[in-house]
């Protein structure tokens, strides 16, 4: 059962810059924020990730795409060790953040550095202000809260909409606003990496467009990794795209290349809509 199926394509840890799978290393101008090497992941005895290796470029948007059940959500949840909340989950392999092993760190400290936004907006049953301030309070910040909250809400392009009712319940916001509030909440603790697990799947097209636009702007603040099963979205917002299929990383390339000249026939089949 142990990794009996190997990826057919050897995937380099860096995206295939240039033409063809032959090119190996990333340009020197592309520092990596996170490095995932040879990650195997199990729920109980069921293996869901097989030998996944990829590098996450600093201040870029990396998209994980693939059909439902391919392991993309599982992969993103390993990066802040959120999978540990699930019983019987087990991981083999190495994940580095700025060269440090994330498993050697305190998990709460890691999650401050690697923020996460979830599929469905999940504001806390608190006011808008308290939602954004939550992470700061938990981390015992010395910063003036009001300033930090305003800054985060501006970053998530929500400030103008909520500045006059910061003390209202977060549930009075629309779904799209709630999701931007969750992004503000994650940004407030100034993470180095922001993980987004299908952040737009519960939103209407207009809210989705706003969040996509936001993500592209947020690149300057932090490194972004987003899971999506919307290929157009990946094409619109990401710099690099990783395509996963049944727990294996099939292809990892700069986004334009993956969508125009995929090197693997399975990638081509997926992006042209033949399955998934």
């Amino acid at each position: 059962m142990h990794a009996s199926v190997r990826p057919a394509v050897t995937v380099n840890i860096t995206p295939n810059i240039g033409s063809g799978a032959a090119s190996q290393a990333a340009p020197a101008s592309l520092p990596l924020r996170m490095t995932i090497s040879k990650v195997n992941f199990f729920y109980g005895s069921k293996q869901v990730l097989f030998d996944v290796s990829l590098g996450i470029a600093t201040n870029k948007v990396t998209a994980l795409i693939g059909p439902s059940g391919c392991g993309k959500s599982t992969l993103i949840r390993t990066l802040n060790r959120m999978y540990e909340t699930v019983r019987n989950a087990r991981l083999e392999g190495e994940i580095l953040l700025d060269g440090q092993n994330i498993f050697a760190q305190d998990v709460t400290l890691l999650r401050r550095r690697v923020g996460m936004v979830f599929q469905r907006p999940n504001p806390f049953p608190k006011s808008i202000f308290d939602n954004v301030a939550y992470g700061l309070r938990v981390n015992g910040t010395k910063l003036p809260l009001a300033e930090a909250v305003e800054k985060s809400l501006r970053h998530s392009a929500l400030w103008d909409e909520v500045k006059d009712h910061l003390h209202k319940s977060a549930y009075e916001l629309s779904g799209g606003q709630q999701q931007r509030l969750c992004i503000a909440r994650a940004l407030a603790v100034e993470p180095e990496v922001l993980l987004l697990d299908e952040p737009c799947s519960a939103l209407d097209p207009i809210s989705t467009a706003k969040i996509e636009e936001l993500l592209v702007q947020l690149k300057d603040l932090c490194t972004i990794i987003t899971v999506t099963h919307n290929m157009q979205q990946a094409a619109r917002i990401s710099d690099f795209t990783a395509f996963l299929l049944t727990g294996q990383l099939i292809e990892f390339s700069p986004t334009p290349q993956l969508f125009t000249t995929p090197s693997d026939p399975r990638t081509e089949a997926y992006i042209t809509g033949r399955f998934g």
Partner: protein
Amino acid sequence: MNPRLRWRKFVSNFMLTMTGLCAVVAVSVLFFILGYLVYHGGTSINWNFFTKLPTPVGETGGGMANAIVGSAKLLLLASLFGVPIGFFGAIYLAEFSGGTVAYVVRYAADLLNGVPSIVIGIFAYGLVVLPFKHFSTLAGGFALGLMMIPITLRSTEEFLHAVPRELREGAMALGASKSRTIATVIVPAAYRGIVTAILLAFARVAGETAPLLFTAFGNRFWSPGWGQPTASLPVMIYTYAVAPYDDWHRQAWAAGLVLLGLILVVNIVARGILARGIAVPRS
């Protein structure tokens, strides 16, 4: 209109009427009981009822001031004892324990919930009354508190489980520890349900008579401190209702009305406080 459609409309209307009727009956029971109590006991409720001690047998008038205070003391003690144990036990069960432990504790709590209240009374008698060698408020509060534990525990646990997983993960993703997540997100998200559950437990034991019969016993006078036998409304109702005096019967009705009224007041006040918080919308 074809017969099939007509039949379906008929069934729909019939069922709608039936369900509506059942809802009306369910609500009207409360008003019926209230009305019945007011009818029989309303005339005996006056200022004296709340301020005077019971009169000696044969004299009319007097009140149940000692029983009202006694019930309040018993319930305070029971809540101080039963609510924290039930609440924190539920947090352990819902958030920290493994499957087997949770199963065993849950099962035990359900059994404890099903133990007849008179048996709880005997248990408290053996454990508190006998060693201290007399009946006391303490023993009564202990017995009632025991009864509050399983109700509080089971319902609190249910409400904690009902908190969406996304909220937990949201807090943990911000670097909150597990205990911090529980204290600042999970319990606040569940607290309306939890308080409602505690109120139910409170109302349930407020009317219990059997566990008090040989723990708090009864008292026709004031009961100073916590170590003396004390009067309580349910025991007073029991004693007065079975006595052969008409005046006592009226007072028993009045005591029932006061007991119900006090529970309603506690309930309304608590709900008023609850309404101010932010509730997690049902998805």
